[in-house]
């Protein structure tokens, strides 16, 4: 299954970021995480954001996800101005529209796989059943396991199930394979790829691993908080072609 990249003007823009800068205090150090980043994200596309550690890619993702606000600049999600939103608006935005996948899974250790998914479906308006989401990631036989009883790959797949169970408009993945080996990583990427293709969820995936770039419709590279390059793949590579 393959889609043609439509001409940009006619494509449905989900996110529109303009001159986004971010500075924050980390302990006693001031970090300039983003410097004037401008970028659009289109409906249904899989965007890969490449960058080394400290390049500002997580900060950018957090701003898109409504976890953080830019210091200057604007970010719009469809009709909503995220950069001007207050805490309640952002909460509602995340609740209704965003699914997160984190590098370290961040499952709640005291809840089983199914319950970790239910944690999110409890507060969504039109979720999948927890088991349906776990089936999607191939973990139907692990529903009653606690995180401590699951491997890293399994935990990450639960995290993906948790993220997609609410049928989000956008899926934001922060180094989803960063803590995994090649085989397990592939398994996880296959799930993300599947969700993107089959459900059509707009997906942004952060990685420091250049090999993964071939999976995306589009690839941008961040370094020192700035976009250093942007590239559109003619064709998305299949998971099997990827190695690291």
């Amino acid at each position, binding site marked *: 299954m393959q889609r043609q990249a439509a001409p940009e003007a006619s494509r449905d823009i989900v996110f529109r970021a303009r001159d986004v800068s971010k500075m924050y205090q*980390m302990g006693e150090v001031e970090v300039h995480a983003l410097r004037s980043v401008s970028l659009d994200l289109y409906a249904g596309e899989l965007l890969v954001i490449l960058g080394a550690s400290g390049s500002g890619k997580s900060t950018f993702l*957090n701003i898109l996800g409504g976890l953080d606000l830019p210091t200057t600049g604007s970010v719009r999600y469809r009709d909503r101005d995220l950069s001007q939103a207050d805490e309640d608006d952002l909460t509602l935005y*995340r*609740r*209704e529209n965003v699914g997160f996948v984190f590098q370290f899974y961040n499952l709640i250790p005291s809840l089983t796989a199914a319950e970790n998914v239910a944690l999110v479906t*409890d*507060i969504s308006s039109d979720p999948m059943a927890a088991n349906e989401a776990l089936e999607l990631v191939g973990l139907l036989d692990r529903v009653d396991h606690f995180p401590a009883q699951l491997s890293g790959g399994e935990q990450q797949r639960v995290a993906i199930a*948790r993220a997609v169970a609410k049928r989000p408009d956008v899926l934001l993945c922060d180094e989803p394979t960063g803590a995994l080996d090649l085989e397990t990583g592939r398994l996880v990427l296959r799930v993300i790829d599947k969700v993107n293709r089959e459900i059509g969820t707009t997906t942004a995936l952060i990685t420091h691993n250049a090999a993964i770039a071939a999976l995306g419709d589009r690839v941008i590279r961040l370094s020192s908080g700035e976009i250093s390059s942007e590239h559109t793949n003619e064709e998305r590579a299949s998971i099997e072609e990827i190695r690291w």
Partner: protein
Amino acid sequence: MNTLSRKLVREILEYRGQLFSIAAVVAVGIMTVLTMRGTYESLLLSMEEYYRDARFPQVWSQLERAPESLRRRIERLSGVAVVETRVSFAASLDVEGVEQPALGQFVSIPERGRPRLSELHLETGRYVAPGRRDEVIISQNFAIANAFVPGDTLRAIINGRERELEIVGTAISPEYSYAVPPGALYPDDERFGIVWMSRDALGPAYDMDGAFNEVLLTVAPGALEDHVIKQLDRLLDPYGGLGAYGREDQVSHQILQGELDQNRTMGTAIPAVFLLVAAFLLHLVLGRLIATQRTEIAVLKAFGYTDAEVGRHYLGFALAAVAAGSIVGIGAGIGLGRSMVRLYGDYFDFPTLRYEIGWDLVLIAAGVSLAAAGLGALGAVRRAIRLPPAEAMRPEPPASFKPGAFERLGLGSLLPASGRMILRNVERTPLRSVFSSVGVAFAVAILVIGLFMFDGVDYMMDLQFRVAQREDLALTFNHPLSRSVEHDLTHLKGVTRVEPYRIVPVRLRAGHRERENAILGIEAGTRLRRIVTAGGGTHPLPPEGLLLSAMLAEQLSVGRGDSLQVEVLEGERRTARVAVAGIVEDFMGLAVYMDLDALHALARGERSYTGAWLRVDEPSRAALNRRLKELPAVASVASPAQMLASFEERLAEGLFIGLFFILGFSGVIAIAVIYNGARIALSERGRELASLRVLGFTRREVAVLLLGEQAVTTLIGIPLGMALGYLLAVAVSAGLQTETYRIPLIVSTRTYLAAATVTLLAGVVSGGIVRRRLNRLDLIAVLKTRE
């Protein structure tokens, strides 16, 4: 149950140890409220019910003798509602098996019908029958102490004549809920009882036919008691009135009220300390919980959980601790309240005394606990809510350490590396360290304050019975006797020294302030009775003028060198101005002393004595007691040694209960504070400690590092608690001061040592529990935990 609740339940189970210790503190707080405050309310309710049902009088006055016809005139006084007159005398009782003569307060009751005021409540037997002049009803406690039952006989020396009386019933009366023999401080049920006898029998026996020597009345609604008292005093003055007084000066009521006030104070102050500690602990534990759940909070927020939902989730921990504590506290509080009220039942005879507790009190107790816990949790929860999710996702920046004050003073090099680590940890979280020390200090303070009460009473009793009252026996006479009595008593076998004294009832006036009182006249050179100051020294008796107890001087607002108008309430009833020659700082009663010669001069009339103190040759004591029982002139014989023994017996009962409470209470607080502190330190520093273990530190060395911090805060908390305890003792000593006594502000070294020891023990126990966890530390797993 939604998923978040499921998370809550699982994590409550995980943190059960810590939450349990908080729940214990909450439980104790609620328990004290329900026990002490509940006891107070139950007693108050029972008292009011009893007073109403028994028609408890509002004003009393004793007098020498007045014709019954005077009653009409009393009834016509404005503001007077109901009047009852009666005849009342003290007389020796010969109780078999009791060596010393017992004293009976004989009180007349109408032969037909019932008293208009001060109704008896019969416990056993029946009321006296008309025409049966030898029938009596005795007070229930006296009956129990001497195993009297209706049908038994009692020998009494009534106005010098021995009479055999038949006990037909036992009863209680609100006037004698607390039956204190004259001159004593607490009941002595074996040797003092109330004997109710037909007025037609008692009156003639004391030459009081158609007359009375005691009047009781109630005040009409809206009338002023003081106004009634003034009129009554004026009316009774020609009849030898000894001064009317209201309920606040009625011995039994006064003591009962004192006990109730004490319950009310304690029922408020002690729970407050517990709730404060619970709030602090919740703050500590939840704060730590939230710190360890930093990323989980971020995840919840990332997926769109609102601040309110996250806040409620973490408040759930506080709620769980409070709910568990409340259930246990309410159950235990009601149970303990019941036994407490039963215990009081032995002390105060109320016809109905049951533990009754309003649900409003239960709700208030639980509500206040919840509020305190909520307050404690709020700070921590607010931190959880305020944490921006993006920041929460990032690891916490490494804790910043710097050399603390101790090291800046250049003392750091005196400590080994482990000592410096402990110290820096204490100094890094100063607020928490201060809180922990304050928590420990609370535990110590509760111990100090609890034990201090015993110190005070101990000291007071020691002073009273070993320094002030040095006589072997104290006699009071039925009527004043002449000088020859000293000679007569000296010749009794076994008596080695006789020192007579005289008590003269007076009314003291200073400006608009006045008080009925009695002057104790002591001969110069008296050795068996000394005037003792609160400090333990003796105060010399001035040859002229009055020596006043400091509390009385304060009430009358006079000082040394001022003068008082003294109205003698006997004989010629003359009034004279007498100088205040000295003030004695004592702590019991409202005594007025005077040199015996000066008193004789003041009272005019013949030199007479109302009693005597005896020094007795121990081997002849039993024979002497028997002889004294037979002497018609002797109204009562008291032995300070016996009084002390019976007091100590009473104290021992209270001591056990008191100690149990105090040790339990402070133990709960100390363990909760120290255990939680150590558990939190362990969860925070598990990684660091595991690293040290991997580097080759022994379990012991690592335990020293972890528990050292708790040891430092505990050791700081102990002296702090001693100081706090002393301050509380000052407050309690002032708060519990009544007209008749105050608790001397003495805190013994023993008390301080006991408080420190108990707290240290609690610390060792807590440390031991945490150390077991420390020994099970999984080195690999801890090292793998992501920061």
